[in-house]
Each structure stands twice: as structure tokens, then as C-alpha cells.
């Protein structure tokens, strides 16, 4: 058998199969060079064990700090909920934000009229940044008419004042 010096770490660490270990030990019995190496390897291996045993076990109280950076940040009304609830809240907030933005002219849109259940005008936004602040007179009538089919037209938008 060839020398086993390059496999002594596996041997001393118990990482050889029984067959491999037996072959290795047979070789060590007849090879002074490998046997000398194995003695040195064992000494190093044992010194490592001594180093491990002499170390004071590290203190183990990580939880308060870890919690503060994980669950501790989720204690509010928003982060306390399930992921699905948080997603629904976020989507709702985004929708309200877009609606508000369009009502105040901050955003342009396709020109949609949102009627309430009773048919009254609830919200209007127009696609050319034109904002109609009044809901009386002919313009208001035209808006209310639009509420029936749900979509404003550029012509209707053109009758308003510019923001």
C-alpha cells in the first residue's frame, strides 16, 4: 500500500470507513515514516481538543437583542398582523392614495367617474390634468350623465378650468 500521510487527518478524525481505516492501520504498522507522521497528527488533534475543552463556553443570551431586531419591530398595529392582512392594508392604502392624488389633480388618469350607490357623483378624474372643482350647472349635469356609463371623455374635460 502506498503511504497514507495525505489521509491521516481523515483517519485521526474518524472519517474513514472501517475498511479504509483497517488498511491504513495495516500500513502504519509496517511503515515507520507514516507512523511517525500519524503520531504527530494525533498530537495536534489532541491539542485541538484541549484547546476546545479549555475554552469557557460562550455566554448564550442572544434572544433579547435578536428579538429586538426581529419580532420587536413588528409589535405595532401594522406589523402585528399576518402577512395577508399587511398586504391587504398596504394595497388599500395605495388605492386610497391614488384616488386622492387624482381627485386633487396630482395624477392624471383615463377619465373615470365613480358614482355612489344612490347615483350621486362621488369622484371624477380626467386624463389631461384638468380638474373640475364645481358640481353645479351644465358641467355638473354632464358629469352626472357620465356617471351612468362610468367613463368621462376628453370633451367633457375640456370644459373645466385648468388646474
Amino acid at each position, binding site marked *: 500500500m502506498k503511504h497514507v500521510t495525505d489521509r491521516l487527518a*481523515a483517519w485521526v478524525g474518524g472519517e474513514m470507513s472501517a475498511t479504509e481505516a483497517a488498511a491504513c492501520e495495516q500500513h502504519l504498522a509496517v511503515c515507520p515514516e507514516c507512523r511517525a507522521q500519524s503520531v504527530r497528527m494525533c498530537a495536534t488533534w489532541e491539542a485541538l481538543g*484541549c484547546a476546545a475543552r*479549555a475554552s469557557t463556553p460562550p*455566554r448564550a443570551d442572544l434572544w433579547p437583542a435578536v428579538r429586538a431586531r426581529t419580532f420587536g419591530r413588528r409589535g405595532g398595529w401594522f406589523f402585528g398582523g399576518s402577512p395577508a392582512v399587511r398586504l391587504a392594508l398596504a394595497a388599500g392604502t395605495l388605492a386610497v392614495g391614488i384616488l386622492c392624488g387624482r381627485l386633487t389633480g396630482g395624477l392624471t388618469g383615463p377619465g373615470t367617474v365613480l358614482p355612489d350607490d344612490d347615483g350621486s357623483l362621488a369622484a371624477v378624474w380626467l386624463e389631461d390634468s384638468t380638474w373640475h372643482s364645481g358640481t353645479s350647472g351644465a358641467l355638473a349635469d354632464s358629469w352626472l350623465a357620465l356617471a351612468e356609463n362610468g367613463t368621462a371623455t376628453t370633451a367633457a374635460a375640456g370644459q373645466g378650468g385648468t388646474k
Partner: protein
Amino acid sequence: MAQERPDTDDDQLMARTAAGEEAAFRLLVDRWERDVLAFLVHMTGSRDDAEDLAQETFVRVFRQAGRYRPEGRFRSWLLRIAGNLARSRHRRRRLLKWLPLDLDRHDVASPTPSADRGVEAEQTAQVVRAAIARLPERQRQALVLHRFQGLRYVEVADTMGTSLAGVESLIQRALAGLRTDLSRRGEEP
């Protein structure tokens, strides 16, 4: 040195953590913090750094809980995160020429005057730990995982993302390097 704790339990705890169950996550932290700390102390040579990185390790475990694949290899996955953080910090410090590994801050037992054998063992341990800290990074990681954390070669390979032969080579070279280093300093084991 076979693994004693079934990682399947850890997989279940990870699933519950991903679902937002704080108690499950706490159980994971309590169960593994000593192993992670011990590993990081040997990797960094500094108790303060080890605690800092161990904390960061568990924060990352929490953040990645939803993507964790329950394949019964939680320990390897956990120590891979810890090892990557240690290597990343070491590289950053080397790059910035910050503090070297501070072996003086390494946690040691406080010997009593009467415990001569304890004092001697601790002195030997300090010399050995210093030699470990001088090993190349991957050799040190493989050796610490195997000799101090009790991982089998296959687990070390999984943790480090390398082959079994690669692990054997790393540990073989680490032990030979330690031997040479200690001999040169007159501390031949």
C-alpha cells in the same frame, strides 16, 4: 460526533417562524446560539465579534425563514450563514486595515492560582487558538466546523459548499499547517 439533534425538528420550527410564530423562533435561537457562538469565537478570535455576528446570523435566519427549504439540514445552513458573515467581516477588516484578530480578547477561563494544571492547559489552549487564527480562512473554517463543532466531513462540505475531497484536503492541510506553526514557535504538541 454524529449529529444528535434531528434537523427535522428545526425544519418545523423554521416553518412556524416563517408563519410569524415568535415562540418557535425563540426556541431555535435558544437551541443553537451556543453552537453558533462557539463557532464564531473560533472563527474570529474575538468574543465581542462572535456575539455581534451570532446576533446577525439569527436575524438573517429570521429574514430568510420564508425561503428556507426544509431538507433536514438546518445546522449546515445556519453555520453557512455564520461562516459567511465571519469571512465577510474578516475580509472587510483586512481590506480596511482595521483591527487584526484580537486574540487577547478571546474569552478564556479565569484560572485560580491553585489550579496549575488548569493554568497550563489554558496556556496551551491560547497558543493553539492563536495558531488556528493564523490559518488560511477556509482551512480554519473547515477545521473549526469539524474539530470544534463536531460536523462530519459531509456536513462540512455542505456548509462550505465544497466537495468531500475538498474538505479532507482543507483539514489535512490545516492540521499540517498547525503542526508546522506550533513547532516553529517551540510549542510542538
